[in-house]
């Protein structure tokens, strides 16, 4: 258990997880991530794709010391709520960072990283993580 191998389950979300494409309501202009079929603000079903810049700041964070099975490899690892510059909040791992450096409001940017692997013969999952903004 806990070893889903169905590749389709993951490639379905490549747009969101590799490129940070979310949704924008054509009716009220609300942007959200991930893209939804119904606008959470006005209920419109006219939603188009929206490309996020990938820049944001840390709202809250934690260091995971007892991970769910399948994620032991990175332990301990930081996870944060990041407020994207366009407004929505996204949950992701922080990377390339010393846990001591993380703070409220820290500026971060999206990078693509390995999220998880399923052993030697299994698939490898990639997706977004956020690192301190390179200046």
């Amino acid at each position, binding site marked *: *258990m*806990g070893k889903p191998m169905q590749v389709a389950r993951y490639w379905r*979300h490549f747009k969101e997880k590799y490129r940070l494409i979310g949704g924008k309501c054509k009716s009220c202009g609300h942007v*959200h991530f*991930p893209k939804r079929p119904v606008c*959470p603000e006005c209920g419109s079903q006219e939603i188009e794709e929206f490309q996020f810049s990938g820049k944001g700041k840390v*709202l*809250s*964070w*934690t*260091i*995971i*010391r*007892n*991970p*769910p*099975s*399948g*994620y*032991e490899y*990175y332990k301990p*690892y930081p*996870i*944060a*709520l990041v407020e994207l510059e366009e407004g*929505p*909040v*996204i*949950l*992701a*791992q922080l990377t390339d960072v010393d846990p001591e450096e993380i703070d*409220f409001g820290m500026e971060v940017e999206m990078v693509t990283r390995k*999220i*998880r692997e399923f052993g030697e013969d299994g698939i490898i*999952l990639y*997706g977004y993580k956020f690192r301190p903004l390179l200046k």
Partner: protein
Amino acid sequence: MRKPVIIGVGLTPVGEHWKLGLRDLAVEALLNAMEDAGVDKVDSLYVGNMASGSFVEQENLGALIADWAGLGNIPAVKIEGACASGGAAVQEGVKAVMSGLEDVVAVVGVEKMTDAWPSDATRYLAYAADAEWELFHGVSFVALNALAMRLYMKEYGYTEEDLALFAVNAHANGAKNPYAMFKKVIKVETVMRSPYIADPLKLFDASPIADGAAAVIITTEEKAKEFVDKAKMIKVAGMGRAIDTISLANRKDLLLLKAAKIAAERAYKMAGIGVEDIDFFEVHDAFTVMAALSLESIGAAERGKGAMLAKEGQIAIDGDYPIQTLGGLKARGHPVGATGVYQTVEAVWQLRGEAPNQVPDAEVGLTQNIGGTGSNITVTILRRV
């Protein structure tokens, strides 16, 4: 509509039941409740359970438990709302009685968690979060609550020690409950010395993984007279439930349990009372920060003042807002899908005047059961007949 009353309760101690399986626990609690109510058959069974398929590879709990409890060919199904499964099952049972479709209904909440490895249990619990947008990133349930805890402390200026007071209170009360998992009084230092599991959340900010089952028998006020004396009848005066975004990140207000607020408003309206009429609160303290947010969302404290109630000593048995009177999730234990039914049983004890840690002259009690990170919440108000 017909007036629903609870006429029987039953339960097993919460703990690590190595010798008992899911069906043993559920059947024991259920038969105890039927005996307490003096009924030998029921019209239907509702089972509150979150993740039996993951924990013990068993679904179809309605058939399993009704069959093994000898209830015959009655209708029986499992009700799932993550950790609020128990609260939701109680409410489904009440609805069935109120509607007139069923006269005597049994509800059992059960979870068997210790048959799984701890890291797998952590994973199964995270199934209540959003699989694609939360669990995918390696988040645990504890971590989601830790994100809220850090924000709460920053927003309102509380310390880890302040929140630890909720755990201290829960243990003080749990120490008097023979069915509690931890019957040990603790101090703030005990919480502070425990290791971080997801900073700033420590082991003693969190409720334990546990096994257990609790059950109630519900019927109408009219029908109840056939089985028990008035002193044993406890009225279900109000109830409500609501959902919120499944992902924490998608909340507009990360520190408002909006689903609890809406559920509580519905329950108060149905009962025709307000928070000032409630004598005690069994809120969902799966994590210390959730106890604070729960008190705020159900109207017992203003926004940001939930933890003040703990600092002022108002959450103790003799305070104005007693909570977790039998130990809460933290000390009684949190067999997830069973918890809402345990809360109901404990509220019934208080209202019957039978609680080992009795709130003096308790007339009205409120239970609040949270599923997910505040995504699925039930509030139920019970009162003496």
